[in-house]
């Protein structure tokens, strides 16, 4: 199977061709994990690199993510059947009082492109909702977003909610948004800070790998 070609189709955003190639590969008994890693995720890594080097814009990245999703529709049932797990599960949301979701949505899409199973709670999300969802899906990671100086402090409240429930240690907390800084992340004992959606992928992968 030509993984290089599959990757190129993903990068070009050609969902139809991606679906086709994944189906063919499976039919030819190519390992589904290999298709995932060498084809789809490799493509998203390459696209992330291109973005970092100012070769493409976000729309191209989103088109690639959609093409990858098309491939995943075919691949996922097989992966599940063979007991392959996603590299991680993450709950994401913009915290209470805050309505901004462009950045949060980009992070969601990029993490999904990296093979992470994403649960998006949307905007204006209270601490309890993060906790409930995290428990429900058995998440590995919680991603918090805030765009205002006056909602950023609520990130602390979310983490405290997990502490109160005695489950803080089970989750990696990644935070981000315009007013958020590395120093702020440290001060509320978040595990990590990501300054944009592309960095978020690297950071999330690193922390999920550590967690396992």
């Amino acid at each position, binding site marked *: 199977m030509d993984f290089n070609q599959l990757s190129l189709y993903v990068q070009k955003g050609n969902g139809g061709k991606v679906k086709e190639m994944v189906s063919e590969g499976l039919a030819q008994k190519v390992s589904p994990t290999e298709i995932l890693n060498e084809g789809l995720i490799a493509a998203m890594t390459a696209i992330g690199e291109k*973005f970092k080097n100012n070769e493409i814009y*976000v729309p191209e990245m989103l088109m690639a993510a959609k093409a990858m999703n098309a491939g995943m529709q075919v691949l996922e049932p097989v992966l599940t059947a063979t007991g392959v797990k996603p590299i991680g599960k993450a709950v994401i949301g913009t915290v209470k*009082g805050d309505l901004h979701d462009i950045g949060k*949505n980009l992070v969601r899409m990029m993490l999904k492109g990296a093979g992470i199973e994403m649960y998006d709670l*949307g905007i204006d999300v209270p601490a309890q909702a993060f906790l409930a969802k995290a428990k429900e899906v058995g998440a590995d990671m919680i991603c918090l977003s805030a765009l205002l*100086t006056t909602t950023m402090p609520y990130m602390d409240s979310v983490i405290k909610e997990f502490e109160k429930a005695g489950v803080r240690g089970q989750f990696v907390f990644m935070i981000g948004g315009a007013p958020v800084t590395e120093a702020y992340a440290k001060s509320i004992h978040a595990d990590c800070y990501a300054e944009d959606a592309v960095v978020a992928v690297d950071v999330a992968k690193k922390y999920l790998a550590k967690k396992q």
Partner: protein
Amino acid sequence: MAKTFEKLAYNSLNDFVYGSAPNPVKCKNGMVIGGGEIYPELNFTLPAMEVTASNMPEIKEIYSEMINGVLKRAKELYAPGIVVEFEMLPEMTLVPEWGIEVNNLLRNAMSEYEAKYGLKSALRSTPGDVREFKRPPVMRSGEIFNNLLKTIEGSAKGGADFIAIESTGGKEIHDDALVNADLTKVIFALGVMGTRDIKFLWEHIVQIAGANGAQAAGDTACGFANTAMVLAHKGFIPNVFAAVVRVASVARTLAAYEAGAVGPNKDCGYEGVYCKAIAGVPIAMEGKSAACAHLSAVGNIAAAVADLWSNESVAPVRLLSDIAPVVSIEQLIYDCRLMNVAKQKGYGITFRDFLADSDSKLDPQAYILRPDVVFELSKELIKAKTPFLKTKAGAKLAVDAIRKAVDNKEVFIAEREKNWLDIMDDQLAAIPDDEEKFWHQIKGELELDKFIPAEYELD
């Protein structure tokens, strides 16, 4: 109250300059915005803290410290006048009493400085457009909408000179359209949803402000064109796309003036320069001295035809000299002094062109703010008959103008941006001139759980 603008507010490009507007606005204390001089407009916000009932005493103390610091410095620098903008945090509109309390606190401090030291000042109150707190947003009724109106009423009664807002109608669709650089959806969001919402909302604001002694000032495509600008700054979308969105947003912001608003337009609405050319209203703008709030490619050119010069927003962070709002007022006052001196000496137009020429070659977002470009594009734009058609026309005019400027080496765009002009052209060509037809054509591609068509008179 409904107005239509069928020709430019200017006869000559040589009258289109900072500090003067064809239809100046007079404040209660006699200060005139757009009457000849450019004034600073200072905005501030809270540091990292939650807006809650129990925090309100501390919040009021912080606003009090900020306003007094700003007024003191303005007095020391002999500012001939300043405008203060109070841009409310969401909770301050959701709970109208909170916003109104701070509004009144600011108003009192300003009145005191005027009485004691003769420092003239005017207050712009800007409630948050909290309608988007519900998803999908209910735009025209309900508790949140009523609280928004209550906040406006209370602020006006409390002595605000101007009421402004960053309205969000259409943002439900526009956010995604932006990150996908999908101009078709941008046009729908701005030209159909945005303009309809603004008409509805601003008729209310004009009525309430008028009944309570305040002026209905203006709106801004902040959540649209400025979001585009920020995304372009981060390299997420092309600069040319952001530039086109800016001109596409003109009709949307202009709709507030059609509904009876009188200016000054809101600072972050760079599309204000087009509104000034068309409606003759004074405008606030922001550039290099708003770098505390966002970096930009329009640091100087933004001032070229501004009537108020703003810092956008700053929290009371402590710098080596003083808190940041005091630093901002100092910078704005000096910028304005310089511009006013040049104008008094008869060099207003010359100085305007320094401002424009210093930025316009380096970025298409700066280029489309050139006074001559604004003038030419506005002339064409007003020929389009409806707000929707003006939106579409704005985008097309911007694409064409940028293409021509690139060819003539009047503006620089990166190689990889060039084919985006073609992409946008193709998208625009496919948009029908009939609004209803457009709606039915695009409907299938929109996420219909994100907005309520009926709130936009759509079915």
